[in-house]
């Protein structure tokens, strides 16, 4: 029997009472799995310092045995062309041309640029790159393949105009390969003495045979497997710009014309994908405009990246909104995945009256642990808001880290975290098989950064019990369950909503609540999320920012596919990759990505604090700052003995650490903000965040730079609104320590108890200028 393993995902992240949620499960080694609906209460199984893992089994008709099966995943980007009338089934002469910027030409495997090709039966025609990295045009008659190959190999990250003219009457096929490199658009410049050109002609022995059911694909070709059925293989890595297909035999002069920027003539044109058409101020759709005679509907699979610099980009315009025609590049990655698109395993209905919270369908096969156990996590929202308190689940940040493999791939992780990683079997399993995709902390195989992440795939680190391998403690979702456990422990009535709900519904989603608490590391936020929270606070809402390094990256959820989040990393900030010049704007909104700080919305403006440092390997306590004795805020530390706060915790035994935030008036911290407590004594592994650095100089480390600290702040807003920020990721994980009776827990109780009450906040009368005797 094969090794038993089970993975799954759901079609939604939040679901309301009475709604249905669908589950998709892939299982090896078993055709049944034991399913159980559970409410997740605490995610860290560390039983020495905390309560250990806690879940509550919920009675539900769906509990019991589910029929499961092996499911296959289509990896990779390509364009699907809907061609029901077989307009692209050219049986005679044809020409194809495209601008390409290959990113892995010497990959050692065949890559299809465009064509109508069946890899299994050797039928059709296609233009592509052969395993040795040479441009090739090939035809197949269902038995054999015949081809013509260019003379010089393609070089990576260089723009080329490539094409083929095939004359069916004489059987001659002529390849066209010319570089269109300019001073900006390619990796290397015009001073490098490469001769890129290649024009090769040969007489093919037979013509293509086209079967009616073979699809025309851009950046891939049809393949078939006996168990899996049809799928797409021979995927291309790199950019393609404005490909087209004609039924004429194009001459060299005609191709030269296109290479110089001309539009192919309408005569004989069968399809022209104007990849730069249809861009708007609000972004770019996944539909690619096909402006030929048949207007064939063409759509990207697994989110090919659009609006990338095209063959004619000349460095002046940095955004596709300014000069769409220079941004016709679509970037394809053979290892991209934004939707596993499995067959539905089961749909369940959320019963009325189910308490709002973090839930999961727990699936077990065989031994029922490790890779034989899966939790498909989702959030249950109340049908109507019920509580005064809401927990805002940061889905965007879970997605950003979804299935990251930094411990395996990133040389910088050990220096960053100051420790060797601790790997578990489930990570090894997914690292090996790779079919569940990557995080926005990964690079694709061709070296490009990953800018889309989706929840329509198993996310191994968005599970309870999972421990982040690079630092050995829970991170994101499982860490946030420490806050959930705290809410549960003290019996607060609390509604759970996700940032995706806020992104979709705006401030309306937050309005019903007096107090909203965030997760431990809400690093990724969209403009709509920020707007909603800012408006919420200004309208009298109270926000508790429970984390560190929050509201940092500018992201967006894809309006065409809500499961997918987009981010581009650039310019500054602690970043896993850097977007290429000219590719800094979100394709899904048209706005500039990168740090919110670089767009005039530093996190300090709403949260009072913003990212200053990360170090991971140790945590420290906070110590009260002098302002905490002021009667406007002294209620926050009421009942706490001594000045230390959070001298305990599940993340390295302290409430201040992992990633920490600082108060900074120069970045927009509200001027009346008070620092309640600050941490100190951070090690030299805590280094200054890169966006802080103008000149780099020695000593930007914990023991030498006073800025490296976590600030816990409080400020008030309009209509009794207020913001309390913990300024540290470890704060949330400090709550369950000492049986929820630690100083961090006490302090948070004071804040929440005050924040959920209607009416004015405590201490608001102590506002006169002090006349002091002491």
């Amino acid at each position, binding site marked *: 029997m094969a090794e038993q393993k089970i993975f799954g995902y759901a079609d939604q992240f939040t679901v309301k009472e009475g709604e249905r949620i669908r589950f998709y499960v892939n299982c090896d080694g078993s055709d049944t799995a034991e399913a159980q609906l559970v409410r997740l209460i605490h995610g*860290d*199984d*560390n*039983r020495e310092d905390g309560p*250990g*893992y806690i879940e509550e089994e919920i009675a539900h008709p769906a509990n019991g045995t589910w029929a499961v099966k092996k499911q296959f995943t289509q990896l990779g980007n390509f364009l699907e062309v809907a061609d029901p009338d077989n307009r692209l089934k050219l049986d005679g002469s044809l020409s194809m041309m495209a601008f390409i910027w290959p990113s892995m030409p010497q990959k050692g495997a065949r890559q299809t640029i465009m064509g109508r090709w069946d890899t299994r039966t050797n039928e059709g025609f296609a233009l592509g790159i052969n395993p*040795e990295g*040479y441009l090739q045009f090939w035809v197949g008659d269902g038995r054999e393949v*015949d081809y*013509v190959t*260019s*003379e*010089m*190999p393609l070089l990576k990250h260089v723009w080329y105009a490539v094409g083929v003219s095939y004359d069916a009457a004489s059987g001659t096929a*002529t390849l066209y390969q010319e570089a269109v490199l300019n001073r900006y658009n390619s990796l290397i410049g015009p001073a490098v*003495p*490469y*001769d890129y*050109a*290649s*024009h*090769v*002609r*040969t007489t093919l*022995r037979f013509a293509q045979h086209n079967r009616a059911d073979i699809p025309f694909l851009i950046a891939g070709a049809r393949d078939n497997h006996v168990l899996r059925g049809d799928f797409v293989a021979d995927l291309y890595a790199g950019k393609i710009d404005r490909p087209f297909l004609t039924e004429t035999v194009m001459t060299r002069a005609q191709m030269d014309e296109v290479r110089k920027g001309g539009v192919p003539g309408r005569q004989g044109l069968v399809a022209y994908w104007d990849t730069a058409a249809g861009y708007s101020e609000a972004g770019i759709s996944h539909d690619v405009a096909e402006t030929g005679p048949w207007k064939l509907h063409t759509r990207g699979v697994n989110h090919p990246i659009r609006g990338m610099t095209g063959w004619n980009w000349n460095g002046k315009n940095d955004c596709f909104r300014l000069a769409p025609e220079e941004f016709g590049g679509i970037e394809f990655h053979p290892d991209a995945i934004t939707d596993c698109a499995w067959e539905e395993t089961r749909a369940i209905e959320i019963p009325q009256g189910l308490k709002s919270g973090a839930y999961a369908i727990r699936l077990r096969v065989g031994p029922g*642990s*490790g890779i034989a156990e899966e939790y498909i996590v989702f959030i249950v929202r109340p049908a109507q808001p019920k509580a005064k308190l809401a927990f805002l689940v940061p889905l965007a940040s879970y997605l950003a880290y979804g299935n990251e493999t930094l*411990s*395996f*791939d*990133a*040389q910088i992780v*050990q*220096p960053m975290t*100051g*420790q*060797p*990683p*601790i*790997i*578990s*079997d489930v990570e*090894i399993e997914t*690292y*090996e098989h790779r079919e569940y995709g990557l995080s926005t902390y990964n690079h694709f*195989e061709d070296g490009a950064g990953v800018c889309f992440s989706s929840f329509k795939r198993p996310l191994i680190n968005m599970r309870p*019990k999972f421990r982040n*391998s690079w630092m*050995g403690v829970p991170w994101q979702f499982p860490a946030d369950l420490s806050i959930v456990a705290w809410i549960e422990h003290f019996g607060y009535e609390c509604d759970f909503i996700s940032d995706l709900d806020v992104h979709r519904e705006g401030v309306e989603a937050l309005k019903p609540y007096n107090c909203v608490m965030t997760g431990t590391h809400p690093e990724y936020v969209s403009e709509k999320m920020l707007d909603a929270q800012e408006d919420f606070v200004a309208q009298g809402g109270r926000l508790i920012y429970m984390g560190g390094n929050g509201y940092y990256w500018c992201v967006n959820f894809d309006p065409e596919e809500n499961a997918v989040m987009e981010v581009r990393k650039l310019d500054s900030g602690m970043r896993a990759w850097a977007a290429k010049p000219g590719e800094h704007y979100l394709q899904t909104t048209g706005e500039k990505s990168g740090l919110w700080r670089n767009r005039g919305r530093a996190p300090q403006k709403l949260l009072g604090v913003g990212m200053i440092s990360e170090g991971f*390997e*140790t945590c*420290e306590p906070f110590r009260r700052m002098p302002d905490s004795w002021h009667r406007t805020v002294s209620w926050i530390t009421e009942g706490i003995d001594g000045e230390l706060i959070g001298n305990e915790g599940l993340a*390295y035994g302290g409430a201040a650490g992992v990633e920490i935030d600082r108060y900074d008036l120069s970045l927009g911290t509200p001027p009346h903000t008070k620092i309640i407590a600050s941490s*100190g*004594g951070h*090690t*030299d592994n805590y280094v200054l965040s890169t966006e802080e650095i103008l000149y780099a100089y020695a000593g930007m480390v*914990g*023991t*030498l730079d006073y800025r490296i600290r976590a600030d816990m702040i409080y400020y008030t807003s309009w209509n009794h609104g207020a913001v309390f920020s913990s300024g540290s990721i470890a704060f949330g994980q400090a709550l369950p320590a000492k049986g929820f009776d630690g100083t961090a827990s006490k302090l948070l109780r004071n804040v929440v108890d005050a924040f959920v009450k209607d009416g004015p906040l405590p201490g608001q009368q102590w506002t006169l200028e002090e006349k002091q005797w002491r």
Partner: protein
Amino acid sequence: MSKPILTQINWHNPLSPWGAKTTDIPTVAATDCSDVWDANTEYKAKTYKVGRLKHYVIWPNHGQRMWTRLRWWPTRRNLLHVKGLYNRKTLVAEKKILDRRPIYWAICLLLIAMGPMLFPASMYNTMLSAGTIFGIFAAINVCWTLILGAASIFSLASYAVVGVTAFVTTYASIQMGLPWFTLPILGGFLGLAMGGLIAIPALRLDGFYYALLTLGLNELCRVFFTTSKQFGSASGGLYGADSFLPASWSPEAQSLLSYYSALALLIAALFLFRFINGKRLGRILRMAPEKREAFAAACGVDYRKARVTIFIITSAALGFIGGFYATLYGGTAFSIFSFDTVLLGLAMVTIGGIGKAEGAILGTLVVTFLDKVLISWGPMRMFLIGIIMLGVVLFLNTGYFGIKKQFNAWRDKKRGEWRSMRTEKGGEALPEEATEEDDKDVLYFLRFDKMQRDYLKGLICPEIIEEHRRQPLGQHSAALERLLMYFRRAPMDDKYALHRNSATGKFKIIAFSGERGVSPRVVEDREYDSIGDGYHAIFMRRVHDLLES
């Protein structure tokens, strides 16, 4: 570099005012890093200039010009296997002929075709008849080398097949008056039948035993035909078959026709070789070389069937050659079965290299030249053949045409030895090694890394190790911190990590592959109860690896 004298100090933790517990513990002062750089200002090994002079013409690329590629009709093979490459030194686009053998074949076959024009007048007749014999024997040996090489069947019965078919077709021609053109065809069928019979034991026997069996078969044929009245036991052979040489032609014209018909036969044998060895059957068998059959079988290769198929097809071809032989010479002599014929044939096949068509032809050429042209040398020439064969067997792995590969392998071995003498383990790249690295940044990394390691090795002492054991994470003394930073920055391949399956499980040391998608390996079976022990065990391994380098 001599190990620096370490100064014992008590480390005062800068975080002690914040309450750090680890402070004022014994450690060593971090010495000056620049000492290592001052001590390493040149290579310890002597350096030599490197580079290879461009001493032949390299085709440039076509660039903007159209390159019309011609093909071998009716295949999709281009005239020559040419590939454009960018010169690594200059980036100039150059064309490289990846397989120059078609050129050599064309030249050699042309030379053979022009032979009669080149032969010296004094030896014209001798050489012409030797040429004919060469053609026939080369054809036989090309077939034989298919059996020995491609099929890995050690059969010595090839000449027996040729002999039997030659005798039987001659007999049939005499008795039944069969015309000349039927003889090779009849021979082919006879060969096919014989091949089928001889192949049966090959399913069970191999190597030495099969060679013995086929040798016995050869001997059986010899005894049968020499003692058989029908086959001319009295006259030393059987003659009188219908010949294709027109009796009306002059002897010179007849000799010429013989010569070219033998050449045509050779070319036909070469095509057979190409179509078997270069196509599916040959490829299957290249997956299943001798002694690795089990592996190939496990991969789904039915190597026995492929071998027997080749054997039978080749036997049919040998039968055809037998028939051709009979019609060319009007019959055949018993000497075809004699042991020395088999031995000479073996010499021919071995000298050039078993399994290669060019090997069979070169071997045949050498042996035939010595045997048939240098007749005046007398028995000496047999010694010479023996010496050549001995030399080939002693010094060459796979005959004359294996020399290049063997030489390259030998040079690689010598280079390895030479480098291991010259380079330090983990040292920086020597000029000759630098030529093999495209990313010149790596060369500097190697230099820097060596300096770092030289420096850090000097810091390792019990105090540092004890300091780490006490507190693996957090602020450390300068000396330990430097060491840890180096360890953490190491590249991903074989970088250590811990493995643990749950929050309550034990720890094991693993090492990353550094290769995308390849799982880490388990370094040792030992399990550690606490994370601190795990971290320290990794530290000790890293210290050990550093001192080893």
